[in-house]
């Protein structure tokens, strides 16, 4: 499969330099550091490439006149700086405000990036995705247009409404930033169309023929070559490609088989939707068995690292589940605690204190006002609790303000105060892998940090966890270890992740390579022809072929037709 190269060449014009000269910003400490620290392969070059794309002689646009550029740099390569500096340059050149949009929880961070570069007053407007429509509506009312719309965390554009809003945004220039913009054919198609200026249908047709990963690789090679996007990455600082496999015991395998047999019996003679429902429940149950098999191994690995004076960040899911078929000795349905809860309990039993963060309650599709208030309150409490637990894990001296928000205590001269953390293990849900900047501090006196994780739901989560983790709270290189089992659930998860990593690799994400190596190792260790692999196939029968006779009769009656 072809691999798209990251474009590293520089445009002829140094727009950053020219901007600094024109605006007399060169003396600003933040800008100075930015200029001194960056060379052609990093942030400054990205800004120049973006501005060249929008204002150069080879400007390419789609049918609505919009030109798109994607900065797909890896985590921690300074996308925030590139976002605000590109916006400031375009705003200054085109004499119009630039609109920067990001996730609500990252808005402050983006504003801080602007402040650090001395660009806060440079005609930049910041808004969250939640308030994007209002910002565009205000612009429509006043007839305003933007020099550029900058979308940070552009992977959020899988949201249908955001796509529609971007389509009508009053601007000719759209800068997209995301470390993992593409993990599915649908996303490859959306970004491919925007960046190439072709219609979605044209790109769909291109991707529809033959091997999808190969087609995506071809498309993205074309996009890099045309200068529509750029991608650079920091190499992982430490040991990354490590995987440990825990084999299921005979009893655990028997549980898997027993659950599968139970569901298969229930699925017999059921109409298609019911089969679909039972299959999704079976997946949850198999996942629970797999997670439970990992608890002891994960706890052992964590303990080993603590004995060597290290700290551990452990990522996993924390979903509890009640089995439909397995029973406790009392005869009651067996309940599975989530993986993180079970590891916490196991470590507590061994005398190891841990801090476990909780997932906030997700917003449902629809809620009443009182439900929204209750959810917001509950999430606020969870957030305070999470922050408090996080401060117990990070080194440094952190106190709480009256409103409950943490504040780092510094020396009178502004230097940080080192204080070894109270807790050496933090248990984080996969969904909480971003947004805790306090984890990014480095201390010369701190011990090594290990990132351990179970298999996440998405390739993006894995890359975020390791990418952020490699510069977390560590004095030096850290390790990343993925813990798996040879369970059916993990095998299925690996299959799904493999496709996502292949797509990421196809669009030039070098960080995907070590994970594809890990997947190959997993397959080598588990063997492709085990009886379990056959069971996976057996439970994977396309449900829609099993069409509903009863449903058809009702349909005929309702629609007044006979076959």
């Amino acid at each position, binding site marked *: 499969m072809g691999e798209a190269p990251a474009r590293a060449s520089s445009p002829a014009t140094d727009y950053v330099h020219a901007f600094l000269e024109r605006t007399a910003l060169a003396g600003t400490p933040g800008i100075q550091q930015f200029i001194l620290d960056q060379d052609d392969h990093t942030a400054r070059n990205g800004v120049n490439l973006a501005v060249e794309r929008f204002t150069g002689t080879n400007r390419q646009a789609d049918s609505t006149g919009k030109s798109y550029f994607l900065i797909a740099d890896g985590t921690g390569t300074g996308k925030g700086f590139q976002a605000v500096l590109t916006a400031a340059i375009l705003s200054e050149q085109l004499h119009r405000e630039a609109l920067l949009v990001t996730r609500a929880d990252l808005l402050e961070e983006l504003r801080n990036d602007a402040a650090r570069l001395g660009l806060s007053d440079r005609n930049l407007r910041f808004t969250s995705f939640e308030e994007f429509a*209002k910002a565009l*509506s205000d612009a429509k009312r006043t007839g305003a247009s933007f020099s550029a719309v900058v979308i940070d965390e552009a992977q959020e554009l899988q949201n*249908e409404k955001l796509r*529609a809003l971007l389509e009508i945004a009053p601007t000719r220039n759209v800068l997209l930033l995301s470390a993992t913009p593409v993990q599915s054919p649908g996303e490859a198609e959306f970004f491919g169309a925007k960046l190439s200026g072709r219609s979605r249908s044209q790109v769909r047709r291109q991707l*529809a023929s033959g091997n999808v990963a190969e087609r995506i690789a071809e498309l993205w090679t074309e996009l890099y070559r045309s200068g529509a996007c750029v991608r650079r990455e920091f190499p992982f600082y430490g040991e990354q490609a490590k995987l440990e496999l825990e084999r299921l015991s005979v009893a655990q395998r028997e549980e898997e088989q027993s659950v599968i047999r139970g569901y298969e019996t229930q699925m017999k003679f059921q109409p*298609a939707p019911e089969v679909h429902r039972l299959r999704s429940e079976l997946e949850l149950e198999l996942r629970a068995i797999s997670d439970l098999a990992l608890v002891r191994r994960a706890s052992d690995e964590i303990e080993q690292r603590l004995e060597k004076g290290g700290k551990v960040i452990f990522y996993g899911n924390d979903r509890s589940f009640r089995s439909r078929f397995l029973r406790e000795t009392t005869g009651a349905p067996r309940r599975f605690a989530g993986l993180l809860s079970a590891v916490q309990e196991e470590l507590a039993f061994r005398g190891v204190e841990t801090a476990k963060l909780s997932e906030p309650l997700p917003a*449902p599709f629809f809620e009443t006002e009182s439900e929204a208030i209750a959810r917001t309150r509950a999430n606020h409490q969870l957030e305070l609790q999470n922050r408090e637990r996080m401060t117990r894990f990070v080194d440094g001296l952190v106190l709480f303000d009256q409103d409950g928000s943490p504040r780092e205590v510094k020396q009178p001269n502004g230097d940080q105060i080192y204080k070894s953390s109270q807790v050496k293990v933090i248990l984080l849900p996969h969904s909480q892998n971003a947004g805790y900047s306090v984890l990014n501090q480095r201390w010369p006196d701190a011990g090594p940090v290990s990132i351990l994780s179970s298999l996440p739901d998405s390739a993006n989560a894995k890359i975020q966890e390791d990418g952020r983790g490699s510069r977390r709270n560590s004095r030096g290189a850290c390790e990343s270890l993925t813990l798996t089992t040879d369970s059916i659930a993990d095998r299925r998860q690996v299959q799904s992740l493999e496709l996502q990593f292949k797509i990421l690799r196809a669009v030039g994400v070098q960080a995907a390579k070590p994970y594809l190596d890990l997947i190959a190792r997993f397959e080598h260790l588990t063997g492709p022809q085990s009886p379990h692999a056959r069971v996976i196939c057996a439970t994977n029968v396309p449900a829609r072929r099993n069409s509903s006779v009863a*449903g*058809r009769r009702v349909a005929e009656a*309702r629609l007044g037709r006979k076959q």
Partner: protein
Amino acid sequence: MTVTMPFDPLPLISVNLWQRAARAFDPLSDAEDTDGLPLIQQEFLYEKRLNQAMLDCLKDEARLVKKWLLNHPSHDLWSAAGEFVSRIESNLDPYQILEFASDFYRHAERNGPSVDWSAAQAWTESSKEAAEALLNWRAIHPQDPSGVPLDLWFDHAGLIPQVRLLIWSLRAYTEPRAREIIETHLFYTNGAFPKIQS
């Protein structure tokens, strides 16, 4: 083997209402009301408006074909057009079309992991696959008249694709895929699960 060609109302009514509605649809019309809501809720409400626009289009199309029927009693397509109108008119239960899938999903969401929850998930997931397949098919067969309503999908399968799939299926009933979608929908709406309290 006889192949039934899908009935195409466009040549009879001489106007592509779907394309017109797609051009007129304004994503900003509820900007004030939805400002600050969680993204998932904004997407849900946006989709609801889009679904309503699709349903309106289908109704208007049936109305125009009905008008055409009155003026062309001896036309070759008269009986096919009549079937089209009666099929749509007799199945335009807005609750069944627009609300059931969302209510079912909301009910499942509120009650947490449960039988309803996994059913709602499974129905939605299989509908997403079907919607994606339809979009792919549309990209390869842009001239096929059955694909016309997909202009209002704006190249997206949607959060709860059951609704847009059903609207498409009522219009393109002779398509085998449409039959399958309707069968699945009826399975869920005919007492397989308790009536959802909205």
